[in-house]
């Protein structure tokens, strides 16, 4: 057991990576799913071990193949990356608990082996981005995630052929983003002669005044912003989330953009350093308006959507706006709020998408109009959706309230008019969230079931995992010491790192 523990950083990545080609060989409905679930759970267990270890004893450095950094590739588990790893593998495992019936309904049985192989590769990539301490490795894992996510999104084509165009659009935009990151890493390599993140960070102050470094910062920030779906680059996200199979949407809503947020934090705070990012290149002035526009405009756009998955996708872009605001504040309180919201939004949004998936399973549609009266036909699922919606709005006792509370405290800490303006913008965006959630609730509960509508409650195998997320979100909204504790620890670590 000691042997396995000392290799935990790499095992959490290697297990799904090695499992993917094996999984592609499995046939039938149960075998590939069960195999994927077991591997994902193993990865989750190692991540939890890692987080406990890191929070007790500080960052762990793992040398791949025994080659010492900066020449070898180094995996670094620090409080932030270990926390994000737990979020990713946890969401993945929870979604997989739900996946069996849902995905068998949407993807031909003969394709399930390949589907779950792509799922495992996506998980590998995201975990890899988080744990790696090597800048080029980030690009490689990013592309592993991206390529498998294009495939996973395109698997929705059986339900709606627009999944294909959504996947293609994401492929074009995502590749541009990843290539921008590649250019940025290359320019940093030209100036430093190293790809090790810690090594680049050490040398960064002495080269920060040069033009290639400024260009590198620009390429990296834009590239990551595309991957986050930050406001002007968000066009791919609603399409991709609307037409992907339901479990893929639930998985990506909780993890894919969050990993990119992690990258943004990692580059801004660890590599560039807060002094350079906010003092020299004015990222606050750049990111803050984008975050505010995203939080406000995307919430308004969400109000007018006809498709429930699309509505939630636009709401995701708005929530990413909050996280952008929190990161741009450049304070420890802001960073805590941002990391906390990564966790809280992941659990709430995954729960919501899973309940939408259950509605789709029973009724065969996610169009809001056709879901009229579902509140009576599927009381348990609908109630789960309502509770999840409350979490999204930020009602007290839900995690959404906790992260908004910390976010508002962080913006008021500025003590100037911009701070008050930001607080008002956040509250306004929450009011819009009330409107779009209420619009759905009204149709679900207070409109009569259309003639000839069929379908009762979804099977238990869908309801139980969905409710695990909903109840889990309430647990983390009431007993906040776990999520707030780890977020504060990560924020302190990042601010103290340089």
């Amino acid at each position: 057991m000691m042997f396995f523990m000392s290799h935990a950083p790499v095992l959490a990545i290697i297990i799904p990576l090695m499992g993917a080609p094996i999984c592609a060989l499995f046939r039938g409905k149960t075998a590939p799913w069960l195999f994927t679930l077991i591997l994902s759970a193993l990865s989750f267990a190692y991540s939890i071990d890692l987080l406990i270890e890191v929070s007790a004893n500080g960052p762990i450095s793992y040398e791949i193949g025994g080659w010492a950094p900066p020449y070898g590739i180094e995996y670094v588990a620090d409080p932030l990356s270990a926390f994000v790893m737990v979020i990713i593998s946890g969401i993945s495992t929870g979604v997989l608990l739900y996946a069996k019936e849902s995905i068998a309904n949407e993807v031909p049985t003969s394709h399930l082996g390949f589907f779950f192989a792509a799922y495992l590769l996506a998980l590998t990539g995201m975990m890899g981005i988080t744990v790696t301490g090597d800048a080029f490795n980030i690009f490689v894992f990013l592309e592993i995630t991206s390529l498998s996510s294009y495939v996973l999104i395109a698997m929705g084509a059986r339900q709606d052929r627009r999944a294909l165009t959504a996947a293609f659009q994401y492929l074009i935009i995502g590749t541009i983003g990843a290539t921008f990151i590649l250019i940025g890493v290359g320019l940093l390599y030209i100036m430093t002669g190293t790809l090790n993140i810690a090594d680049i960070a050490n040398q960064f102050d002495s080269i920060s005044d040069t033009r290639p470094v400024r260009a590198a910062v620009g390429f990296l920030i834009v590239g990551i912003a595309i991957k986050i779906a930050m406001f002007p680059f968000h066009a791919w996200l609603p399409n991709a989330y609307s037409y992907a199979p339901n479990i893929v949407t639930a998985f990506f809503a909780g993890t894919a953009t969050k990993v990119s947020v992690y990258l943004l934090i990692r580059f801004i705070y660890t590599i560039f350093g807060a002094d350079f990012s906010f003092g020299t290149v004015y990222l606050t002035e750049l990111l803050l308006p984008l975050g505010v526009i995203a939080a406000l405009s995307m919430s308004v756009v969400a109000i007018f959507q006809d498709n429930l998955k699309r509505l939630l996708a636009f709401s995701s872009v708005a929530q990413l706006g909050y996280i952008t605001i929190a990161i741009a504040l450049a304070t420890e309180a802001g960073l805590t709020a941002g990391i906390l919201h990564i966790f809280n939004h992941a659990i709430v949004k995954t729960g919501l998408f899973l309940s939408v998936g259950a509605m789709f399973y029973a009724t065969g549609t996610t169009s809001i109009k056709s879901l009229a009266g579902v509140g009576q036909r599927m009381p348990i699922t609908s109630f789960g959706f309502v509770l999840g919606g409350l979490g999204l709005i930020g009602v007290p006792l839900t995690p959404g309230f906790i992260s908004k509370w910390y976010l508002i405290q962080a913006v008021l800490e500025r003590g100037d008019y911009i701070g008050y303006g930001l607080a008002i913008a956040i509250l306004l965006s929450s009011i819009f969230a009330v409107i779009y959630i209420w619009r759905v609730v009204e149709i679900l509960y207070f409109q009569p079931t259309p003639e000839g509508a069929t379908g009762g409650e979804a099977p238990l195998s869908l309801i139980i995992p969905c409710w695990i997320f909903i109840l889990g979100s309430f647990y983390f909204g009431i007993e906040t010491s776990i999520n707030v504790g780890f977020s504060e620890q990560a924020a302190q670590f990042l601010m103290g790192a340089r």
Partner: protein
Amino acid sequence: MFFDHFNYWIVVILMMIGLYTLMSRSNLVKKMIGLSLFQISVFLLYISMGKIEGGTAPIVSNAPDVLYSNPLPHVLILTAIVVGVATTALGLALIVRINEAFGSVDEEEILNSEDSL
């Protein structure tokens, strides 16, 4: 100025041609061509940065005082080339499926038929 940094100018020119093709064409296959060109320009950037003036190919020889070029960027870009090939293959496979489903590879025609769904 131009010939001092000849490779880098070519990188910039190729990159802009690629991005422009990507944005201006509505034919999906042409978009993929633009995307490949854009990626290839970055490969060239990496290959250029490994060159050291007067350096020879990084193969160990017994001659004294040999200056070697830096092989690391070349190794890195091999990985990126593989990624680029995979992206192109996947993109083209998607175009085939799109053509089957929509009967067209032209973005505007596809958008029009989507609206009529």
